[in-house]
């Protein structure tokens, strides 16, 4: 007899209640925002028109979804089938990340009911126009890539099979859209050479945003395997994830080198040496978020130890978030002549969205065939022997 995997159990714990409270707060804040305007709930102003919802929710939400295109490319384009077991959870993370971004945008846009205007009024000179199209198209692609999991659960295996046949073009479109989208978020800031601090401004911004997103996206894959492993009593797939740590070292290494080249070329290392406000923020971002994970993950003993690997992955994600906030907030403060600190309500919305995304992930993991334990046996799927449920293994 098969023991019931823990993925099927459901209980409302501390985290569930906390998440519910934040969801309620989110609804109240959304109500205030749509009745009293953005000024009533945010610390945004004419001097600081973009705040936490752009810097964290949009820039980080999209970036941390980068694991999806990286892993799907590895499996479906590079045919690295060993990564197959983590494809569905990463696609789900990517999809939820994009839904999270869209919800945040619906709050942040002044008139979100006009969001479809980007479809009919074109301005190909605008990076925001490119961003809008990438959000729309890639959210659809992620939904399609994930749909077989839902269809299988509903017993619509024939449709799932059809989508599976289309997976190669879907993945290629997904990778192209992601490349464009990740880099275009950096291109958004190319327009402000006179405003963004030279520690962050460079014509290389699109390349830097893309590279760091790949690194942090892989970091997210490791983190999310760790979190779901803890929640569902699963093993950390070390044989799959440790090599990913190696890739993070390579990607962040190249990224870090480019960042150093930029500050040397811009002459902005003077701010680091003079230890100015921007210099300190850069140092924090660079040591904690680039140097530390590169050093940690390049040590074999650390990388092959689950705690070490997760710590390195966490730092790479933290460094990514710090970078996006530095570009969108810290680096713009001097030119704006104002400090920006998000309001309690802005922060609450961001936390609530992260919480809701995690809750939806947990629910999906319980009810949909996402992890190999819960997936229906498929002839095409090769399951790694180390991935049997914990209870069964013992």
């Amino acid at each position, binding site marked *: 007899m098969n023991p019931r995997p823990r993925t099927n159990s459901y209980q409302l714990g501390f985290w569930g209640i906390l998440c519910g409270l934040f969801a309620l707060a989110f609804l109240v804040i959304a109500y205030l925002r749509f009745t009293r*305007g*953005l000024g009533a709930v945010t610390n945004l102003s*004419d001097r600081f028109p973009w705040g936490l919802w752009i810097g964290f929710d949009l820039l980080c939400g999209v970036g941390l979804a980068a694991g999806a295109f990286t892993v799907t490319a590895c499996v479906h384009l590079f045919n690295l089938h060993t990564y197959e077991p983590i494809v569905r959870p990463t696609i789900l993370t990517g999809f939820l990340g994009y839904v999270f971004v869209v919800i945040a945008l619906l709050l942040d846009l*002044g008139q979100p009911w006009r969001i479809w205007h*980007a479809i009919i009024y074109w*301005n190909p000179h605008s990076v925001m126009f490119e*961003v809008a199209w990438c959000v729309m198209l890639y959210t659809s692609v992620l939904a399609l890539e994930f749909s077989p999991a839902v269809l299988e659960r509903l017993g619509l295996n024939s449709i799932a099979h059809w989508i599976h046949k289309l997976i190669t073009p879907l993945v290629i479109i997904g990778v192209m859209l992601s490349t*464009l989208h990740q880099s275009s978020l950096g291109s958004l800031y190319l327009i402000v050479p006179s405003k963004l601090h030279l520690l962050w401004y460079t014509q290389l911004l699109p390349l830097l945003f893309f590279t760091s997103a790949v690194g942090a996206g892989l970091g997210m894959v490791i983190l999310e395997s760790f979190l779901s492993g803890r929640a569902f009593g699963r093993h950390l797939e070390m044989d799959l994830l440790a090599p990913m740590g190696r890739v993070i070292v390579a990607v962040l290494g190249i990224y870090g080198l480019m960042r150093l080249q930029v500050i040397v070329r811009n002459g902005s290392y003077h701010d680091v040496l003079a230890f100015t406000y921007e210099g300190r923020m850069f140092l924090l971002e660079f040591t904690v978020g680039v140097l530390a994970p590169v050093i940690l993950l390049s040590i074999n003993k650390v990388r092959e130890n689950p705690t070490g690997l997760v710590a390195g992955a966490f730092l790479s994600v933290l460094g990514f978030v710090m970078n996006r906030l530095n570009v969108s907030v810290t680096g713009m403060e001097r030119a704006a002549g104002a400090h920006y600190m998000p309001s309690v309500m802005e922060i609450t919305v961001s936390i609530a969205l992260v919480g809701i995304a995690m809750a939806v992930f947990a629910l999906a993991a319980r009810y949909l065939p996402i992890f190999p334990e819960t997936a229906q046996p498929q002839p095409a799927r090769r399951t790694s022997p180390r991935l049997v449920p914990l209870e069964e293994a013992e």
Partner: protein
Amino acid sequence: MTVGLLYDSTRCISCNACTAACKEENKLPGVVEDHTTAYTWTIVEDHGGTPMRKLCMHCLVPTCASVCPVGALKKTAEGPVVYDSEKCMGCRYCMMACPFDVPKYQWDRAVPIVGKCIMCYSKVKEGQSTACASVCPVGATVFGERNNLIMDARERMRAKPSAYVDSIYGIREAGGTGVLLLAGVPFATLGLNASISEEPPPMRTWQVLSKLPDFVAVWGVSLYAIHWITSRRDDVAKHEGSER
């Protein structure tokens, strides 16, 4: 032909007739505030006794129009940079991007729009002068064709060289602006960014955006090629395995 405005700080008497006329012409609610807002499109700032008008510069290559995803901001053939509030979805990229920090937002409204000087476009289109220039009692703000305004400014500087700093703000800044400024003290002391590059900011993004179609084609084909090669390699490996 491009029209514009010439503001001469040395002639301005800070009477604020221009700010009041602007409010009236554009039907903006509330009193004139001490800084530009979505409801106050122009003000006369005081910088240690020296007045300086703040208003949209009406760039020749406007950054706001280039960044607007729905094309709500447009450079007209006559010169003014105008705003279509019916298209705007409120992303506020124009505010973030403007090198002169001109567009402002209605933070207090549930259905907000952007507010900025539109150089009285409906009047200018009819060949009339803007409200601020018509009402100015001392000719500190004058309306005209941009080329004529530049000649006028140079003439003033030639006639009274000691009264002016030796440059016209707006000739080259961000690729040139429709609004030109003259002053007796350095512009940097009047709340203006004097180090704005001559290259219009939209060129920076266009360098990247214009390459995207080529990039998409090459990247797409490359990805398919990688898939084709790896799949073929798998097939060959499988075939060799079964032969053995």
